[in-house]
């Protein structure tokens, strides 16, 4: 382990806030979902890094990451089903054009 822990955390911080930027600026629903994946992925890296460097004898961080990946998969599948349904009904998935869902 010649690499300090902070290096990993800096990379995951950059990944997280890139995801936040995409979440704010994107209009396409699928692109928003992709930014969300970036955010979740950064959080998983953090869990694993803290587990490895601060509590190397235990496995809690790894299991938290495994379950978090499972929940992310479920969430993405349902979200994509909803987006495809919205596209089928309204022929567009742009958040500024899908106006019937707002009220």
């Amino acid at each position: 382990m010649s690499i300090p822990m902070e290096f990993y955390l800096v990379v995951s911080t950059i990944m997280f806030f890139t995801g936040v930027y995409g979440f704010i600026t994107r209009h396409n629903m699928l692109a928003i979902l992709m930014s969300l994946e970036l955010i979740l992925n950064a959080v998983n890296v953090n869990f694993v890094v803290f587990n490895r460097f601060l509590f190397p004898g235990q496995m809690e961080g790894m299991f938290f990451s495994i379950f978090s990946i499972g929940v992310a998969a479920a969430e993405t599948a349902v979200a994509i089903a909803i987006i495809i349904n919205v596209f089928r009904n309204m022929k567009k998935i742009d958040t500024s054009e899908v106006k019937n869902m707002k009220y």
Partner: protein
Amino acid sequence: MEITASQIIFYILSAIIVGCSIMSVVSRKILRAATYLLFVLIATAGFYVLLNYHFLAAIQISVYVGGILVLFVFSIFLTSQVGEKMPQVKLSRRIAGLIVSLGGAALTLFVLLTQNYPYAAKVSESEIDMYAIGQSLMGTERFQYLLPFEAISVLLLACIITGILVARKK
């Protein structure tokens, strides 16, 4: 100070993660954005291998890259034309996003780099035993995770049913 192989690999992986995640949120072609996301996810699996979490790296590849990303690509094909560019984002919104993300990143990095971490005395270099992972995943004792495991399986079942119910044709 000499540079070891793992450091070189770490720098390559971080360059891929940083560059591709930025490209993934600014690219105007959505299929290209999905491809950049693929590189980010694979490089993250490389991080897990570097940290000796081989099982987690396998899960990352098989679930994220093999499952979620394929789902993304299929839904992109279903909902947009190939080669279609997304419209340019308004400047005010881009500035707002930049302020929020750069401010948040600056604050987080400041806290991160001024903090002293109580490092463990000896960081283990070895890979986690697969037997230990299986025991922890399938037990009901302390530090064993049968209940969350079952909760995830019920959640995935509910997710399958919801996906069929929502996305099927009437």
